[in-house]
């Protein structure tokens, strides 16, 4: 026997009350593509599953006052297909379009991709480049967590699904003239984790031939989606030139810290791929702006 009860609350308040009653033996479930497997493989245990996908407040993707908001139960298919996301944050639509396979993307939520806390997550890596925040509600109140603080380690989220409900992802629109792109290196196109992935957001300053804001996130090269801050600083440091892009990509290869793995390849290879893919992606963005 695995879980003993399954509830579908109609509101966040009701969901939290159910988790409270379960006193640590309950757990939030949305798409369930990771959680159901973990429960069946006994990697996790829960007596009560609280299915939040029926809560209307958690649906939808919208824009307000310069912010984009994605409800906690929005699936990867919805995010990848959203015209708003494709227009304002293409890297996120591209990343979500790479998760698993169509069936998985129809079930799994972007919020789940964050809470599963895998450093290779194709949905969460673009969110790191977009400096997203996660809204979390519990019996003690509401808070916003910057995405980088949502990770405690590989597979360990700072959001405690046994007593907290994550309700919303939000990020500021990258801005007029900004472009974002996602890249991915993998052995197959579907149903495989990436050898390397990354998201780049660049806001050029048309008056000065400089980049006024660069944001770069890479995975899986650390225990969580990794912000390449030295690389970003390099890109913002001078006039755009092929030399500047190459210098920045070399810094990214330095600051990324991938492990040598039988599945993903050697650390030196993956560092070199960081350099190569970043160079290509930055060039592609600059050609498009």
């Amino acid at each position, binding site marked *: 026997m*695995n879980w003993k009860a*399954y509830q579908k609350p109609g509101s966040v308040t009701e969901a939290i009350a159910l988790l409270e009653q379960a006193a640590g033996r309950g757990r939030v479930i949305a798409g*369930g593509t990771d959680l159901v497997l973990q429960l069946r493989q006994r990697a996790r245990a829960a007596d009560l599953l609280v299915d939040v996908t029926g809560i209307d407040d958690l649906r939808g993707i919208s824009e307000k006052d310069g912010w984009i908001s994605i409800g906690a139960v929005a699936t990867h298919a919805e995010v990848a297909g959203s015209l708003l996301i494709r227009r304002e944050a293409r890297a996120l639509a591209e990343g979500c379009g790479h998760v698993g396979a169509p069936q998985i993307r129809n*079930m799994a939520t972007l919020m789940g991709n964050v809470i599963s806390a895998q450093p290779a997550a194709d949905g969460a890596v673009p969110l790191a480049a977009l400096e997203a925040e996660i809204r979390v509600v519990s019996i003690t109140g509401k808070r916003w967590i910057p995405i980088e603080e949502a990770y405690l380690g590989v597979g360990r989220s700072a959001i405690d699904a046994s007593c907290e409900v994550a309700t919303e992802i939000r990020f500021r629109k990258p801005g007029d003239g900004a472009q974002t792109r996602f890249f991915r290196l993998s052995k197959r196109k579907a149903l495989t984790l990436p050898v390397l992935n990354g998201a780049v957001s660049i806001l050029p300053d048309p008056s000065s031939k400089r980049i006024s804001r660069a944001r770069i996130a890479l995975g899986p090269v650390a225990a969580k989606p990794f912000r390449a801050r030295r690389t970003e600083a390099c890109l913002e440091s001078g006039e755009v030139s092929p030399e500047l892009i190459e210098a920045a990509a070399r810094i990214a290869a330095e600051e990324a810290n991938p492990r040598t793995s039988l599945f993903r390849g050697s650390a030196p290879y993956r560092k070199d791929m960081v350099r190569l893919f970043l160079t290509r992606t930055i060039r592609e963005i600059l050609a498009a702006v």
Partner: protein
Amino acid sequence: MEEKLKIKLKVNGAWREVETLPDRILLDLLREELGLTGTKKGCEAGECGACTVIMNGRAVLSCLIPALKADGAEIMTIEGLAEEGRLHPLQKAFLEKGAVQCGYCTPGMLLAAKALLDENPEPSVEDVKRAISGNLCRCTGYTKIIHAVRSAAETLRGSDPEGARTDP
């Protein structure tokens, strides 16, 4: 004795009431409680697509869905694809184009293709490849499956110029 719970789902157009243990998986419910063994059990880990069904209009993996999550849902299994004993154009095309070999992936493959054609009546080769990218086939090499899906799309467009079908 574990307590069983009653759920209702619309399977292949008909509402069914079933009793289930709380931790039952939809795949097992379909196969063992409803006798719909056309839905295949492959990897049971969300990686092969053999258990694909269409739930509320979208292709999903029944091996990763708690049965209780499907309470109230509308589900199409492979048994619901043919109508009144007449094979669906996708099924016909799979047979005619040699897209079936051992057959184990076929139900999932057909439903992934059905979900595609419901949304996109005129898919490119790339569209078909993407739509079936979550369905593993170890026999055919996929080429004939892709051919069959596009051929069925053509048939469906011919028989219905709107490209839409009025399936349940």
